């Protein structure tokens, strides 16, 4: 008995020793910088090494919230996020259901859908930028050869054509992640349910809406949260494909530019806080929604 208590005590002490280093590192790289960001956000803080920081209260926030460039970036980011996450959910579920069926070549399909996921975002952005190149891009060449368009289109020059292309890149790259999560979710559905439904004469459509969809919903919601949070902070794809075009900056690009190009840690930090709040609103909405639909 005494020995067991002794063991518990030793385990408890060891637990502390093991957890503390990781917690310290997490605090150093997330907690401390986050506190700094909150502090900088109320300062006029130029990183030129000359002007000393001074308190401006909510001045930086007011500047951003009245800056039409910022709202434009919010609009671009929201359009991008809603479209790409919706498409990814629909395509992800389709691919997951196909990959969950029995057919020849199923394992090949499962490997093939992993490839876009493994490609670095910078690389996929470059590949797609090349495919949609205004002169040599295969899309333009094919479309003009088939006489579908009268002349070549500079896809990446205006938001009307560039944003859909960028959404396509994101869908291409991240649908695999969605499919994999959903595939795991589909695997948890007991096969008897479908057999019972077949005996009752349910059609495939009925089975999808009354068995597959409700049962895969919890997994789908988790996947949606992950993907939405990722999409809202999109940086790489826009930076690579249309970087430098102010009318296609996302929230993250707006933020990074204030920090790096204008060396303004005050406005850069206030932008970070606003982005964090927008992301948190989405998290709250999702958790609300998942609570109301499962209780």
């Amino acid at each position, binding site marked *: 008995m005494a020995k067991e208590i002794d063991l518990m005590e030793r*385990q*408890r002490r*060891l637990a*502390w020793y*093991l*957890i503390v*280093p*990781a917690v310290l*590192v*997490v605090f150093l*790289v*997330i907690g*401390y*910088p*986050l506190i700094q*960001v909150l502090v*900088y956000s109320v300062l006029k803080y130029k990183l030129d090494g000359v002007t000393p920081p001074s308190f401006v209260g909510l001045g930086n926030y007011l500047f951003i919230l009245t800056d039409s460039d910022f709202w434009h970036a919010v609009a671009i980011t929201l359009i991008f996020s809603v479209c790409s996450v919706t498409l990814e959910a629909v395509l992800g579920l389709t*691919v997951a259901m*196909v990959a969950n*069926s029995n*057919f020849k070549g199923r394992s090949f*399909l499962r*490997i*093939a859908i*992993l*490839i*876009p*996921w*493994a*490609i*670095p*975002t*910078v*690389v996929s952005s470059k*590949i797609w930028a*090349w495919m949609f190149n205004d002169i*040599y891009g*295969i899309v333009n060449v094919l479309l003009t050869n088939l006489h579908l368009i009268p002349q070549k289109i500079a896809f990446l020059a205006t938001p009307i054509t560039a944003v859909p292309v960028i959404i396509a890149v994101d869908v*291409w790259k991240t649908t695999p992640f969605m499919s*994999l*999560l959903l595939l*795991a*979710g589909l695997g948890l559905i007991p096969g008897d349910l*479908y057999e019972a439904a077949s005996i009752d004469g349910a059609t*495939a459509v009925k*089975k999808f809406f009354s068995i597959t969809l409700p049962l895969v919903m919890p997994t789908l919601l*988790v996947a949606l*949260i992950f993907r939405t*949070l990722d999409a*809202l*902070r999109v*940086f790489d794809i826009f*930076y*690579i494909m249309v970087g430098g075009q102010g009318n296609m900056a996302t929230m993250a690009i707006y*933020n*990074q530019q204030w920090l790096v190009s204008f060396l303004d840690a005050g406005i*850069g*930090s206030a932008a970070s806080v606003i*982005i*964090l709040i927008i992301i948190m609103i989405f998290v709250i909405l999702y958790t609300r929604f998942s609570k109301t639909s499962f209780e």
Partner: protein
Amino acid sequence: MKEQDSKSPLLRVLFYLLVVVILVFNLFPFLYAIVSSFRPNADLFSTDLFPKAFTFLHYDEIFKDSRFVTGLINSIIVAGCTVLISLALGSLCAYALGRLPFRFKGPVLYIVLTMTMFPQISVLSGLFVMLKGLNLFNTRQGLIMTYLIFTLPFTIWVMTQYFRSLPRELEEAAYVDGASPLEVFWKILLPLTVPGLVSTGLLAFIAAWNEFLFALTFTVTDQMRTVPVVISQFSGATSYEQPWGAIMAASMVVTIPLVILVMIFQYRIVAGLTAGAVKG
């Protein structure tokens, strides 16, 4: 949704058509990039799927480019060290969270899960100033430190799930034999979590290898750039004249090792990706 033999031939044809569409959509851009990387500049606008002439010129060109080679070395060092540090700190912490009695286990796990989804952009200025203050701006050490933001919480979370899933009996027997908790971890549990270490390590490596925002923001010289940033800055004589052949060749050099790893460790990677997310 198991495919049944009783289904009509039309449905089966449609099903296979869907499979083909999925395969083409997933593979075409990648294959097109490979083909472009071997295509001589003169044929660059050709749409033939198989190039009439092959050239290794673009690969020659990029391996003679010291920026690309330096970037490649930097990426290997940064991603490698990030993974090693995350696995070391993360698996120790995960052992405590998954296996040892600990009063604040719930809150700590909750914080770790929140951190796995933490948007990196929100601490960009904080890290920028911190790295400058620590004289780690524009260094590989600085990048490694900031990369722990996304690799460490993730490693802790996934490894905790692994430690939890191991049977209790193993360690109980060892404790009866008088082993200490640390010995139980080192000699009994850790060897059993090797599959978990492989999958989290690979996922962390891929994440660090692909990272762009921090690498772009926290490094400024060619000596310190990682390879994604180098590729993003490849340019020709003028900004209108991008060296697409070289860009595609460089892209393939940084991508093909990952694709091969993913193919080999397919099951491990899928297990790591879905751990946590599905169990919730």
